[in-house]
């Protein structure tokens, strides 16, 4: 299969968290991933998209989230979750386990930690009042061949 690229844009409502992870799962289907790989990708995407819904747009239900997914023949999956919300002040602090600005809403502060643990690479870029872009890279084990 040749390199593939897909972009998905949707409104930042909580209902679309599930849609986003189903789309991510659908994107990797041609690589015949393991249940473990699918679960890791779905979980990481769910974390990133939830963050945009909750933090970037303050759970207002307004705003747009963009999902860009790329795959190479070798099974490297790159998923970018982008929002145009409030942005992150201190990225390093935000990435630390247990750090959250929404403890009252029962957030655990484990989102970035899980994204990091479930992918091969996590890049977080953000600008105050401009938005946030989270890049998740996952190397699928396609040794069994396509």
């Amino acid at each position, binding site marked *: 299969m040749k390199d593939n690229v897909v972009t998905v844009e949707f409104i930042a409502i*909580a*209902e679309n*968290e*599930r849609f986003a*992870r189903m789309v991510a799962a659908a994107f990797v289907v041609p690589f015949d991933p393991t249940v*473990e790989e699918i*679960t890791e990708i*779905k*979980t990481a995407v*769910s*974390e990133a998209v*939830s963050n945009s*819904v*909750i933090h970037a747009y303050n759970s207002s239900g307004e705003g747009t989230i963009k999902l860009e997914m790329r795959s190479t023949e070798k099974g490297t999956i790159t998923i970018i979750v982008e929002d145009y919300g409030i942005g992150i002040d201190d990225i390093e602090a935000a990435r630390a*386990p*247990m750090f959250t600005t929404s403890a009252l*809403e*029962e*957030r*655990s502060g*484990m*989102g970035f*930690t*899980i994204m990091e*643990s479930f992918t091969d690479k996590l890049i977080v870029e953000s600008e105050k009042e401009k938005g946030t872009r989270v890049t998740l890279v996952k190397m699928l084990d396609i040794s069994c061949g396509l």
Partner: protein
Amino acid sequence: MQIEFEMSDDIITAILTGELDHHSALSIREDIDHAMQVYRAKNLILDFSSVSFADSSGIGMIMGRYKKVKEKDGCMMLCGCSVYMKRIFEMAGIFTIIEETEERGEAMRQLKERGEENER
């Protein structure tokens, strides 16, 4: 996500079915808090055996319920966590404060034993 409750003495069991994310956690936590109040239950079992997906919103939901149960001097247990849920919950150190069993029956048995110990 669907939720069903079972009562036995002062233990309420919440049986969750479906996907547990930020969206579904919003209503699930209200349902559980409401049920605990209505049934005046002290102790809580969360049964995850029919949960097909969970992310960090599950951690927040569990910790939130744990705080409420502790306020009433109750006990809480989890059961039926998949290997993926366990990975997530372990990262947050949940199992260092809340015990977990495979089967719901076993969780029930352990909670009842503790209750009897407390009465002595």
